[in-house]
């Protein structure tokens, strides 16, 4: 070995690699569908979307190069920024409460002193198996202003009937409500699985040391669950920034000519992108919106990741 030159060693390495590749040839065949499909339906659309965003195009006539014009137009487009505001508003009022509630529920249910775990877990999880469109139809009825059950129930507490879906002030809270209803159980189940993977001896030890429940939660549960929470929050950022089904159904439906309801209070970015491209046939402009939303998602995920990565929960 010592007598081989660097060049010879490299050659030998390459030969070993080639031999290994040939020997495992079938492995490449087995994994190839993913890479082929991802190139066609993943990478290519990404690049093509970027290309589209530099053009104006109605989807039929030839594309027209406009450079960054779509982006400069987007910068001063009040409706676009309103959708970003609405989307972020929904993230903080739906996703954050949903994750927090899910974490608390998971912690309670994980306690060995709570009975009926399977029942609670299944009950909380039920909404996620339902189609968001069907769920929206149910809630449109529940949230009716004059005859809705929620307003009827609120009357017992002396609350005046609320125009949940018709007023600009309550549309977003309504969307948040349905989102929380549908997604809390999902997050809870994931947190619960994370909790169950924590070694019970750690709790045991802490308890013997005389630690109280809230200390255990703060100093054992949260730090050990951090990777799971981090991953869930990032997936939630990605999901919430692209929310579509519930907002579109609660705020006017898919055939609405003015999506987003009163004052566009329920208009989220994904719905505006959908309408701009496929109803107003401004493909280039919508592609620019999609790219900006994509960048915002990456920035938010990155910010959260670096914030949480640097600042451990003590």
């Amino acid at each position, binding site marked *: 070995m010592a007598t081989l030159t660097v060049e010879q060693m490299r050659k030998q390495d390459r030969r070993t690699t080639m031999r290994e590749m040939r020997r495992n040839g079938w492995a490449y065949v087995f994994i190839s569908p993913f890479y082929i499909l991802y190139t066609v339906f*993943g990478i290519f659309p990404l690049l093509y979307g970027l290309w589209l965003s530099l053009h104006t195009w109605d989807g039929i006539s030839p594309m027209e190069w406009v450079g960054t014009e779509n982006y400069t137009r987007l910068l001063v487009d009040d409706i676009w920024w309103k959708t970003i505001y609405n989307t972020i508003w929904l993230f903080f009022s739906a996703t954050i409460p949903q994750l927090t509630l899910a974490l608390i529920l998971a912690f309670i249910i994980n306690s060995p002193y709570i009975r009926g775990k399977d029942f609670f877990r299944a009950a909380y999880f039920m909404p996620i198996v339902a*189609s968001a469109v069907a769920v929206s*139809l149910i809630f449109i009825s529940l949230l009716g202003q004059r*005859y809705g059950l929620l307003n009827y129930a609120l009357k017992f507490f002396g609350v005046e009937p609320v125009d949940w879906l018709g007023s600009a002030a309550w549309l977003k809270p309504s969307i948040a409500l349905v989102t929380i209803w549908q997604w809390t159980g999902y997050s809870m189940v*994931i947190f619960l699985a994370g909790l169950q993977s924590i070694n019970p001896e750690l709790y045991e*030890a802490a308890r013997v040391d005389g630690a109280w429940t809230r200390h255990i939660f703060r100093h054992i549960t949260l730090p050990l669950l951090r990777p799971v929470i981090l991953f869930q929050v990032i997936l939630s950022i990605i999901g919430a*920034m692209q929310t579509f089904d519930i907002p579109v159904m609660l705020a006017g439906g898919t055939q609405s000519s003015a999506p987003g309801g009163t004052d566009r209070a329920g208009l989220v970015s*994904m719905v505006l992108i959908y309408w701009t491209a*496929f109803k107003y046939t401004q493909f280039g402009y919508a592609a620019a919106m*999609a790219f900006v939303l994509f960048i915002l998602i990456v920035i938010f995920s990155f910010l959260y990741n670096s914030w949480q990565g640097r600042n451990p929960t003590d």
Partner: protein
Amino acid sequence: MATTQPLTTTKTLVAKPQARISRRDRLAGPIGMLLLYGFLSGLALLTVFPFYFMLVTSTHRTSDILTIPPPLWFGGALIQNYQELVAALPFWNALWNSLAIAASHTLLVLFFCSLAGYAFAKYRFPGREGLFAFLLATLMVPGVIGLIPSFVIMRWLSWIDTWYPLIVPGIANAFGIFWMRQYIDGAIPNELIDAARIDGAHDFRIYWNIVAPVIAPALAALAILTFMGKWNDFQWPLLILKEEAKYTLPVALSTLRSLRGSEIGVQILGATGAIMPILIVFLLASRQFIAGITAGAVKGG
């Protein structure tokens, strides 16, 4: 673990402190526990109630529903609502479309994802780590960027208003491959595969005859998850399907939202039709559902 050892010993040796501790052990005192159960049950009730409301409302006419208080017990208008539902939209046709699309997509997912998962779990090929890291990274790419160009691609392929765009993309998806790799890695001993190879079995034959039968539980969980996602999928089919006869259930249902003056009971009955098939399977197999959802998420962290 080293620190826990002496503590556990103390616990077993000294009886008295343990009694004191066991009281602390509980989440709360008796009243606290009552409150906790009240909280858990109250939330469970709130979670389940809309489903009950759905079943009740689908048996009433709008004139009954729009009363104060709204009906909370079953009425007698189910048949009439049903007749109006199937008159307003091709309900059974949409149900069949959803079923056919979700089932064929799921079968393809099971095959391609387990095949790739097997390769990643049991082969040591050059570039394996890099290719797998790339695969995991794609999980984090938001779909929004691909929506418009994907639609254009489907038009190039003349796939608009067909089922192909709903079935084909995603049949070899990163989540499924990751999920199958995790399972195959732990479930199948290398010796089994080596023995088959010595016997002269071909690579695909090993997958088909030895790997595939053993990974049935993982396949079941992935199948449930994939089927559910496809069944409830809304945005993409809404964009792709034009002809009413090809609509999936969520797309067909969304048109009910816009019909003016349509019966509320009819709309809700439609929702019932979309929710109940999955909900029944869930109630029968909630463990597999939950296992499927949690596996990737927790290990992925």
